[in-house]
């Protein structure tokens, strides 16, 4: 093993080394425990980092420096927030459903963490390689809707209930185009195994799925759905401040609120990770020359880009309205995703170059047509011309 490979496989080697202290019977279980703890540790600290990045990044977008007084460059801000959340009084409304109110954050954070088990973080670095990784990701992710419902309904608050209903409707609607976007990749790689999918994209960025016509569209669809699934702006309707106070989080205080917050970020990073795996070559380096950089650094680098993109979009865009959000999912993304599957099929079966023009033309037509249709629900769109009174 060369040094480069050693660094590349460092997490795995560390795990093996730690496991070797245990009797053979326990070894697989200890390995699992270590993987689980590592995932939680890494992504929980990434959560802290990304909250800080978000606050500072939003600050920069808004021409201000953001937190910079707590610790060096404000780096300890998340820690201070964490301590504060921990000691904050925990309020359960008297009329709330106490069991559901308590269970909701836990029931939300467990699936948010479980989905990480199928994400290949680096070469050979995957907690659980299984044949149906992609399906597992979506299957487990689907249960977060129930947790949000528990939170909203359990709070016995009107804003919470409205927020959670919105959240469920939004999440189920966007789940469909997301799954269908993933289906294109399954179609192309004939596999649901995340490791296989990543390996199918080896060789350089031109081999990534994002650089095919169907892949680009699927990535875009997937990304929009990722924004919606993790309730991030411009799809943050469930906790729309200006309408519903804080949506399903309205009645949560103390660390339970922090858990929701954490689940949101964990979900955001998990979905980004899945997008990277499916479309952007996972842990693969964009150029073969760059292979000396450890694979997991590529993964986290790409993840960081996604987080930055999330923050950037959050800092720029206003929020959609609930019905527009639904229209976008059902009347734009879903047909596009269905069409895209067909194009991916064509791509796989045809010899390549001929699929390009067909795909581009068809997709272009579909996008423009559906866009027109979507816009048609408003009385008048487009640029307006203003007159002046005499």
């Amino acid at each position: 093993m060369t040094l480069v490979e050693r660094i590349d496989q460092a997490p795995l080697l560390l795990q093996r080394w730690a496991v070797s202290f245990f009797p053979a019977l326990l070894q697989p279980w200890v390995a699992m425990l270590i993987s689980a703890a590592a995932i939680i540790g890494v992504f929980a600290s990434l959560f802290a980092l990304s909250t800080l990045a978000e606050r500072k990044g939003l600050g920069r977008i808004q021409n201000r420096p953001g937190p910079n007084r707590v610790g060096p460059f404000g780096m300890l801000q998340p820690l201070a927030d964490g301590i504060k959340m921990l000691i904050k009084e925990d309020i359960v409304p008297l009329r709330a459903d106490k069991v559901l109110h308590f269970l909701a954050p836990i029931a939300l954070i467990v699936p948010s963490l479980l989905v990480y088990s199928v994400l290949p973080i680096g070469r050979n670095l995957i907690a659980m390689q299984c044949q149906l990784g992609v399906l597992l990701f979506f299957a487990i992710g689907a249960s977060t809707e129930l947790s949000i419902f528990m939170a909203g309904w359990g709070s016995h608050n009107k804003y919470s209930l409205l927020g959670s209903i919105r959240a469920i409707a939004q999440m189920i609607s966007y789940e469909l185009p997301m799954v269908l976007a993933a289906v294109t990749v399954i179609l192309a790689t004939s596999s649901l195994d995340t490791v296989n999918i990543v390996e199918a994209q080896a060789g350089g960025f031109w081999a990534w799925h994002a650089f095919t016509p169907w892949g680009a569209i699927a990535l875009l669809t997937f990304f929009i759905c990722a924004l919606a699934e993790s309730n991030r702006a411009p799809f943050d309707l469930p906790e729309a401040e200006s309408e519903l106070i804080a949506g399903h989080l309205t009645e949560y205080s103390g660390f339970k609120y922090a858990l929701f917050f954490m689940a949101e970020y964990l979900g955001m990073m998990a979905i980004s990770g899945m997008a990277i795996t499916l479309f952007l070559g996972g842990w693969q380096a964009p150029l073969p020359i760059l292979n000396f950089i450890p694979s997991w650094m590529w993964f986290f680098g790409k993840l960081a880009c996604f987080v930055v993109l999330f923050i950037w979009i959050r800092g720029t865009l206003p929020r959609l309205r609930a019905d527009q959000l639904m229209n976008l999912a059902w009347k734009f993304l879903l047909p596009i995703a269905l069409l895209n599957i067909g194009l991916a099929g064509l791509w796989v079966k045809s010899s390549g170059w001929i699929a390009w023009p067909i795909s581009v033309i068809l997709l272009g037509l579909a996008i423009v047509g559906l866009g027109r249709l979507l816009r048609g629900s408003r009385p008048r769109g487009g640029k307006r011309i203003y007159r002046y009174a005499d």
Partner: protein
Amino acid sequence: MTEADEKTIQDLRRSGILLTTLEDLYNWGRSNSVWPLQFGLACCAIEMIAASMSRFDIARFGSEVFRPSPRQADLMIVSGTVTKKMAPQVVRLYNQMPEPKYVIAMGACAISGGPFKQGYNVLKGIDRYIPVDVHIPGCPPRPEALLNGLMELQEKIREQNLTGENRPHHLRSDVSGEFPVPEFGACDLEPPSNPAVWTPPEPIREGL
């Protein structure tokens, strides 16, 4: 500093470094993460917003997270005139904030009714119903004055003890966590003030 204070500190010293570290950590965390309730009443609210904007940027102190729900807020900035019609809501919002919680009375109106003191619908100071930690005079105070008040509050938080006799009221089990919400009367609030929180000062003016 009174003798009792000295004694508590001595007690604390004796009870071990762990507690003081814990206390430091506790106060450090709280004082650097003061999330205000997104709550504006009148003119001062605009300066409060200005304080969170790029020129003054309250985010540098970790306080830009203006939470719309009282459940996640630590600080209530009473920014502007509290009218009698609004006072019950203010008190209720304060009650609904989880402990530990703080109040900054920003501007003359919030402190005493200010220029509108003579009005029949104006509450003459929010401290009639809820305890105020920091008063910021001004009409409206500059955004820097709010930042100054916030730093004052952070200082106050840092000086709070975790144990001992003079620990803050939210650490005491014998002090209630909420304050009675006044009700609308025929022409004034009932009661007009909460005597448990507020006693008018004795007239001490010479020559009168």
